[in-house]
């Protein structure tokens, strides 16, 4: 241990164990996390080259190797990994916060959408195969020409009562689905959000299950064009993709019908609440608040530890170079961000808890708090991601020239975090949604 950093640890004035338990979910949860970390770190199968020195294709293949290995090892984890939360922690330790092509969108959006919007029959058909990874799914909402404004989506789903099928179609270039993670080359199913038409009337966007690749040879299904959208600012291990649908026909049961239905004859039965269709997005926004808290905490960890080790200049001629952490200007850059990471830690606890209780109430038919949840999750998602995004950059700048090197881990943390400001709702638009609710009040 570097003596300067050890000296820092020796000066603390609080009980480390008490705080570590608080931040890691209590004694049992923390013990479990430590065991999971130990299992992953002692498993040599998960070792691999440093991604900083790899090409995009090599990175993509390496993370796919790790992701598929993780699926295969899933059953052997035993009692240690009991629920989804444990499993996602295991996943995090394997992928190191980089995309897991078999989990992130699959478990983050595909499965929750099925859980929230599919009927019991539809769940029986797709949910179990999805959990067993017999099908690989993603969530295709955003289009090349349309993002946060969902009512502007152009993809159509016309119901044909003669054949009891929907015809799903991308009518323009701008309507091509664009961005969904793992859509390009990995997944064989997608939940496609499209404008529903029955009897010539548009009923707004609804979710449809579409098989996009052949289950035998993985080729694109007829009428479907798929591909990768190309290199990005970050997330280059992921095949964020595009999808063009050319009059693709799916059976009537492929519309997720828990909340609103289309009957055989084309009669439309509306959901009790229109915004139930956006439930997955509200969930994801709630979890983005958590990601913002942890990303800022990671950036602060790097910058503060380094600032304890780095010595620079001399305060007075002839004196030894002080640790940069001792300079008030360095403290003024980093300590408010450290405090912010704690404020966000508690905000994310509140947000995730609020999502859980409102979601439970919605399951029982109580929609009274949905609008507030939508407003809070939109506002906090925007507020925390903006702050974290600029905060990571301040942390990088606080590490001098070495912050510019990929060795610092900060450029990659920044590029991986940045999309949070634009996906699942562009931040300014989300702030306006929050403001509309406030003004209405």
């Amino acid at each position, binding site marked *: *241990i*570097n003596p*300067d950093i050890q000296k820092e*640890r020796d*000066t603390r*004035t*609080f009980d*480390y164990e*008490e*705080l*570590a338990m608080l*931040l*890691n979910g209590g004694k049992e949860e*923390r013990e479990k996390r430590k065991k999971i*970390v130990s299992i*992953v770190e002692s498993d040599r199968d998960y070792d691999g080259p440093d991604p*900083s*020195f790899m090409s995009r294709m090599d990175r993509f293949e390496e993370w796919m190797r790790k992701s598929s290995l993780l699926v295969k090892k899933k059953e052997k984890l035993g009692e240690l990994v009991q629920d989804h939360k444990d499993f996602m922690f295991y996943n995090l*330790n394997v992928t*190191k*916060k980089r995309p897991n092509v078999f989990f992130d969108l699959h478990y983050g959006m595909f499965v929750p959408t099925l859980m929230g919007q599919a009927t019991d029959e539809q769940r029986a058909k797709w949910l179990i195969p999805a959990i067993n990874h017999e099908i690989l799914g993603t969530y295709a909402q955003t289009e090349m020409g349309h993002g946060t404004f969902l009512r502007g989506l152009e993809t159509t789903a016309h119901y044909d009562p003669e054949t009891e099928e929907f015809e799903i179609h991308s009518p323009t270039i701008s309507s091509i689905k664009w961005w969904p993670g793992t859509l390009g080359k990995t997944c064989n199913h997608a939940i496609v959000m499209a404008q529903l038409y029955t009897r010539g009337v548009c009923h707004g966007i609804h979710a449809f299950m579409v098989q996009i690749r052949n289950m035998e040879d993985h080729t694109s299904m007829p009428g479907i064009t798929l591909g990768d959208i190309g290199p990005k600012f970050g997330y280059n291990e992921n095949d964020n993709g595009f999808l063009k649908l050319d009059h693709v026909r799916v059976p009537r049961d492929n519309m997720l019908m828990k909340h609103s239905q289309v009957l055989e004859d084309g009669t439309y039965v509306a959901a009790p609440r229109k915004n139930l269709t956006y439930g997955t997005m509200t969930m994801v926004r709630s979890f983005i608040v958590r990601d913002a808290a*942890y990303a800022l905490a*990671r950036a*602060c*960890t*790097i*910058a503060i*530890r380094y600032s304890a*080790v780095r010595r620079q200049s001399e305060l007075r001629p002839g004196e030894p170079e002080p640790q940069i952490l001792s300079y*008030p200007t360095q*403290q*003024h850059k980093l*300590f*408010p961000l*450290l*405090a*912010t990471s*704690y*404020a966000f830690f*508690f*905000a994310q*606890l509140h947000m995730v808890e609020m999502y859980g209780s409102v979601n439970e109430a919605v399951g029982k038919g109580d929609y009274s708090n949905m*609008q*507030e949840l939508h407003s*809070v999750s939109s*506002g*906090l998602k*925007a*507020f925390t991601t903006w702050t974290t995004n600029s905060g990571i950059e301040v942390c990088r700048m606080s590490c001098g020239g*070495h912050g510019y*090197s990929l*060795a*610092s*881990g900060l450029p*990659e943390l920044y590029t991986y975090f940045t999309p949070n400001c634009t996906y699942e709702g562009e931040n300014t638009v989300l702030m306006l949604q929050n*403001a509309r*609710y*406030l*003004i209405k*009040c």
Partner: protein
Amino acid sequence: AREGSNGAKSVAYIHQDAPQMRQYVDFNDLDTICKLYEQRARGLVKFAANKVEEEVRNGEDLVGALNKVSVHSVRAANAHCHYFVVKNFVDEIKTLELSPGLRSVLMDLARLYALDGLSKNSGEFMEEGLLSGKDVKQCHQLVVELLPKIRPNAVSLVDSYEFSDKILMSVLGRYDGNVYPNLLEWAMKSELNKTDVIPAYEKHIRPLLKR
């Protein structure tokens, strides 16, 4: 008003009357600071709402009015979220069962977060008549005075998150602090370091030098 009376907790404060401003702001009292955030948010929300009403009175339809006021609306929403985060932070620390030592450290962090927010958004607090120029100067000074209180715990506060080195993937943020030897080792992995003389020497450097 309807939403407030229906029990939407996060916006209930908007309906309350603004308390009389005090001549002296006690920045040591976190409840007082929370009240300042609350009043800033309420003020900015009401400002935006009044602007919408004004636009409507001047003949704009509601959609047009909301669009014209959208810059103010974003400020209002930002202030509301900021208030939510500050208040939630303070409330959590008060509610949690903590040892006095840890509570004191977390309280200092909460004060730093709240005061830094006042300091960085001082214009909005002054605009609402909540802080004077003198208050803002005091606030800047209090932030500076809090820094050495955080200093002895800074490394342990980040350690407590318990991110493993493999998750951080940072030579600079290593737990053991052995940054420099590992920076050298990391750099040696560069493709350019595979050979002493790079192939580009024969192709480009040598012809240039020997021309």
